[in-house]
């Protein structure tokens, strides 16, 4: 996870003109192949429409249709889920990581649930929270929470001891050490967790919208499109969902770079 963050940061810092253009080469190539395949009939356009019609439909749906509404609903759910996950996950992760024995005793539990496919918990959450918002948001929050707790606890546990000792030698109380040193010391790892958390929250929300009863959201839209064979809109929704995931990740990278300017230096 750390490695991908570094690559991401490097990309943000990309300096030269060529360096800036390069990332666009892959997507443009894929678009070109898609377009050519549709044009030459290599592609069954009834199953996979060409890029032109797909984008046109998507644009229509976003500007005049209901896609922007679905998008907003999905985003709201993701943000709620994320806020809950971070609100509980960061403090709890700090508490768990602060004590090695506590960490060792809950490590397996966290790892186990983290490794359990969240989607397998759908029925459980539906039983507990019904078919409404609570289920979708709750499940996404739960999945993101686990990742955040794990990363924060791990970061706290492995925080370098010298700064903590330094603060202690200056007479800082335990609480001060937590707030002034450990929290900040762990911030890079916390951001790794937050970024992974927001990604997983989006995944779970979209899947939940597909399968836990509802009337809106990108997941709901995609599955409806498939039932009604509205494929252009379906692919458009896929692309928009992808763009949202990418955008969220990128936004976190920017926030991270601003707040954790010292990381790795």
């Amino acid at each position: 996870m750390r490695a991908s963050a570094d690559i991401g940061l490097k990309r943000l810092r990309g300096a030269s003109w060529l360096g800036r253009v390069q990332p666009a080469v892959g997507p443009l190539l894929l678009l070109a192949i898609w377009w050519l395949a549709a044009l030459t009939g290599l592609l069954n356009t009834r199953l996979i429409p060409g890029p032109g019609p797909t984008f046109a439909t998507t644009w229509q749906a976003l500007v005049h249709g209901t896609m922007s509404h679905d998008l907003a609903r999905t985003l709201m759910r993701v943000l709620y889920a994320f806020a809950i996950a971070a609100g509980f996950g960061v403090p709890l992760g700090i508490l768990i990581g602060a004590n090695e024995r506590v960490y060792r005793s809950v490590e397996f539990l966290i790892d186990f649930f983290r490794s359990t496919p969240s989607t397998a918990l759908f029925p459980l959450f539906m039983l507990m929270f019904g078919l409404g918002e609570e289920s979708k948001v709750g499940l996404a929050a739960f999945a993101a929470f686990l990742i955040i707790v794990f990363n924060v606890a791990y970061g706290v546990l492995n925080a370098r001891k010298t700064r903590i000792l330094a603060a202690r030698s200056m007479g800082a109380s335990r609480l001060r050490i937590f707030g002034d040193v450990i929290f900040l010391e762990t911030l890079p790892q916390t951001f790794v967790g937050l970024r992974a958390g927001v990604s997983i929250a989006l995944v779970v929300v979209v899947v939940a919208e597909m399968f836990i009863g509802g009337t809106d959201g990108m997941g709901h839209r995609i599955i409806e499109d498939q039932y009604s064979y509205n494929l252009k809109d379906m692919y458009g929704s896929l692309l928009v969902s992808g763009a949202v995931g990418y955008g969220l990740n990128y936004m976190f990278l920017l926030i991270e770079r601003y707040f954790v300017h010292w990381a790795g230096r």
Partner: protein
Amino acid sequence: MNQEALQRVPTTMRVVDAPRASDAVPRGVEIRGLTKEFAGGYIYRNFDLDLRDGEFVSIFGPNGCGKSTLINVISGLMPMDGGAVMFKGKPIAETKLSYVFQNYRDALFPWMRALGNIQYPLKLLGLDKKTRDRRVEALLAEFDIRIDLHRYPYELSGGQQQTISILRALITDPEILFLDEPFSALDYEMTLFMRERLQHVFMKRRNTMIFVSHDLEEAVQLADRVLLLTRPPTRVAEMVPVDLPWPRDAKSLSNAEFVAIKSHCLDVFSREVGRGP
């Protein structure tokens, strides 16, 4: 009182009372019966040591002999398994002390600017911003340091960073300053400069300095007395006085007396290391 108890009394008396109040030298750091044990065995066992108030003591000894352990225990950064440490007759916990770490990269707070780092101990004391600014200004004026304090530590050179950590240690005007190999991560030029700075600090403040070094020349140069330690379980091999005038500049390092003291320390060191574990 039974026989056994009577016998124990004098021992206890000795431990508590060793430096007499009538001593001409004012009481400095008194270490009594220090015991410290790691998984590998005893590092210190019933270790006694006296350091004078306001003296500069260098600690020198083989790797792993417990130099860091000693100052960590004295400064309270590390708990001891037995014994007591007093300064001027009070428990060391009630003493204003500061600690400079070897690894300034890990000891400074990279999320704070240099100024914030220096002021942090004052913040812990609850002083308001105006007072903090005034204290920093006074400190900087005292040492004539030209570093842009609005930079982050990672934007400064190694020597500048260590200077910041020394300033951070001095801002509270500590009675004792502990330094654990503070210059060992610096290049030679920077090291020479920092030795000069540290002497300057000492001559101005005359606070007690306890300085660990793995460089014998430096240990002798920056000391009123050099504490030579043995291998563990660690004892004092010898306490070597360095009666040379301060400051000791680069020229004084080739002075005959300095060279003689250094070679004497080396003899003691070689004898102790040669003795084997």
